[in-house]
């Protein structure tokens, strides 16, 4: 079999296309651009000016209001604040995905983390520095347990992690409500206020972002991103988890305990979501909440991970993107752009990302052809 002779221009075009489709990052960028193009068209179709949307986004990202030429860094702070839990729940989803698991339970793990943080905030001695750190650690541990439980059920009893996490989301939600309402003086929606020491400090970020709600939690998020990358890409554990995710048979053949990988992976996933819960509970509020509904950070994390390709850097960027869309809403409304357009754009991006499955089939098919070609090439060279 010989290679098809293509005109060289066509061939280089095809190579470029291959490289593009083969690169998940490029595909994500394309998908996001596509989402915005569609969003722009929709804004046009309802008779509003798309420039308003982009000016609102600009203001979110830089704090600069191009209409009034006023700069206010608070918008930047709010953007980052909105992004923090999204990045973390995105990593919760992504980490499990890299091990071949579909963690739809980030919402429940987030709630468990949030609840644990609230309890430590209310009941532990108010020691400056230690108090909120302890609350954060408790949140991570409790949520790691909540996630690890799913991994264990999966490994031990072959319970589908999708079913288990959906169930545990409900359990987490009602458990949180029940426990929080047991707290003396708690009413139907809140507990007494936290002591000052339980709040994640804003320190220098407060003047820097003009009294936004941005806390030093942002550094914890960045640390988590680094940790995510380090574990998955650089450690022995990450190697085992990735091998398990890509080919369970080969992993167990190589002597990797697949059961252990699944449990550990879900525990780490849970911890990320739990930290998200603590950052919201102790960063954006100063009292414990009796949840009235899902905060939806966990579910939005699925979209974040999808767009971010479950990579550390990708999830960071995509978390910032979704955070931008969320925090730009009020600014859009003030410019007569319906705020729902941000949800439409997010939704379109997710749909386009899901189309990647189609691209994936194309890639695999091309790889097969390439492999067949490789085989014949090696035949020609007398292996």
């Amino acid at each position, binding site marked *: *079999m010989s290679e098809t002779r293509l005109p060289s221009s066509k061939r280089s075009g095809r190579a470029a296309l291959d490289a593009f489709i083969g690169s998940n990052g490029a595909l994500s960028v394309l998908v996001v651009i596509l989402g915005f193009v569609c969003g722009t068209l929709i804004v046009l179709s309802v008779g509003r000016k798309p420039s308003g949307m982009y000016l609102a986004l600009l203001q979110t990202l830089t704090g600069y209001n191009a209409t009034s030429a006023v700069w206010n860094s608070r918008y930047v702070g709010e953007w980052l604040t909105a992004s923090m839990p999204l990045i973390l729940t995105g990593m919760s989803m992504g980490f499990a995905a890299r091990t071949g698991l579909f963690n739809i339970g980030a919402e429940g793990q987030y709630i468990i983390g949030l609840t644990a943080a609230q309890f430590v905030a209310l009941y532990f001695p108010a020691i400056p520095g230690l108090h909120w750190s302890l609350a954060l650690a408790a949140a991570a541990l409790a949520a790691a347990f909540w996630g690890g439980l799913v991994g264990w059920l999966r490994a031990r009893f072959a319970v589908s992690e999708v079913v288990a996490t959906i169930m545990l989301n409900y359990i987490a939600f009602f458990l949180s409500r029940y426990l929080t309402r047991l707290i003396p003086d708690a009413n139907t929606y809140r507990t007494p206020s936290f002591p000052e020491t339980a709040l994640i400090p804003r320190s220098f970020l407060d003047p820097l972002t003009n009294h936004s709600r941005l806390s030093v939690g942002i550094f914890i998020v960045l640390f988590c991103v680094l940790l995510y990358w380090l574990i998955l890409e*650089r450690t022995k554990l990450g*190697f085992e988890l*990735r091998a398990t995710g890509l*080919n369970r048979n080969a992993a167990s053949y190589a002597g990797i305990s697949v059961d252990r990988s699944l449990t550990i992976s879900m525990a780490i996933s849970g911890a990320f979501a739990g930290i998200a819960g603590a950052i919201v509970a102790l960063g954006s509020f100063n009292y414990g909440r009796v949840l009235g509904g899902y905060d939806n950070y966990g579910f939005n994390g699925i979209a974040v991970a999808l767009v971010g390709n479950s990579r550390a850097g990708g999830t960071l960027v995509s978390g910032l993107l979704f955070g931008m869309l969320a925090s730009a809403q009020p600014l859009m409304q003030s410019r007569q752009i319906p705020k729902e357009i941000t949800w439409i754009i997010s939704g379109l991006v997710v749909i386009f990302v899901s189309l990647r499955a189609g691209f994936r089939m194309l890639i695999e098919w091309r790889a097969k052809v390439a492999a067949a070609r*490789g085989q014949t090439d090696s035949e020609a060279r007398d292996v």
Partner: protein
Amino acid sequence: MAATTDKQDTRSVSDGSEWAVEMLGIRKVFPGIVANDDVTLRVRRREIHAILGENGAGKSTLMSVLFGLYAPDAGKILVDGKEARIRGPNDARALGIGMVHQHFKLVRPYTVSENIILGMEPRNFLGEVDFRGAERRIAELSDRYGLAVDPKAKVESIGVGMQQRAEILKILYRDADVLIFDEPTAVLTPQEIDELMAILKRLQAEGKTVILITHKLREIKEAAERCTVLRRGRLVGTVDVASTDESALAEMMVGRAVDFNIRKKSPTLGDVVLSIRDLDVRGSRGQLSVKGLSLDVRSGEILGIAGVDGNGQTELIEAVTGLRRVEKGSISMDGRDITRVSTRERAGAGIGHVPEDRQRHGLVLDFRLDENLALRTYDRPPLLRRRFFLDFEAMAERARSLIAEYDIRAAKGPATKARSMSGGNQQKAIIAREIDISPRLLVIAQPTRGLDVGAIENIHKRIIAERDKGRAVLLVSYELDEVLALCDRIAAISKGEIVGIVEAKGVDERLIGAMMAGKARGAEMGMRKGAG
């Protein structure tokens, strides 16, 4: 190379009587690959015509074009001298062309006759399916062609050989005149192969035309009159089998002289390395797949397990390598009981394992080559630093040395994705990795499945070199030729039991075939039975 028909010559206009099927200048392009490039095949009436070529030479593509599964990009097909447009298998059937696929297409819970009439059920005057009439006709056909098929037997209860004959009946029932067989002997024991060859001749005697796709030279010599050889999608030539010897056919197929005789020294036997006693292992569906099996493998020898696929080989290997729980009995290595020891510890003790399915078990296809080569050793220095961190530079370095030593062809070196490598090179990578963990014992399953001749030679040489270095090798292969060529001793397995163990030197292949079918007991044949 013997009388090759000239390509130009075959272009002459056919007279319509001599040829059953003519495929002229067939070209079929898949994206990036020309699977058939100007291939001409002319099959005489009532001949057995073999199509020979390596994996990927384009045999199956050519036959799929004839059977209507692919539309050719160029060329034309003549059936009985008339140009035919074959748009699908139904068109092919209407022209009297039938195909026995390599993987049988039978509904297992149905009877043979139900399978055969499926899709063209005969009706009686009430519109009911006329099973009795169908069965009668099938029995007649079976008698006429000597197929010995029981029309009332359920497919799941009959052996592979009879299933294949049921497939043949299915085609005959549809009044085919040209029967295409796609690698029909891959799943058969030597005895069943003999039977099939007899059936092919019987079909011919009854006036049918047979096209036999194969890469096995012996079968061609045995059954075929003429043989068309393909190489890399191109026609090499069509020869008369009687006047061409096997090595000439091999040279046409591969494109260079091939040495089929594996040269090996007589073994220098050492201590018993692997000792299996009275082993029971359950299969995936809970059935007892290995029953009371005992075996010894010594250092410096290759012990081959000969048997038809599905007789407990997979379960045995998984038990030895720690991937499957042992029900009863013991496995020990160098005198140490390892029956309950983990896969990783066994690897640490020096068991290397080349798995049966290289893509499912042997490799993480989306990992890089160096990561794949590290699958067994990533958890210890030098690849592991400070207990937790992988040293990717060391990983790439080690990959580079294995690539050089084992001649693994990978486009981007250590960074090549395993998925993009050819099957032969994937297998070389696995063998390199497993030999490199310095095993006392190499457990190898199906080392050359789906590989081309060059890669097979390379891998066989490598396995023998390891044996000569004093390693014990336990080899499972469903290709009897491979077992015969490589092994020092051969244990025949049937239904999870070792039927007998024989010295490979000068052994009669029929004897092993009989044992594989579970028919002979080693003791009766004057052989040592059980542990050697």
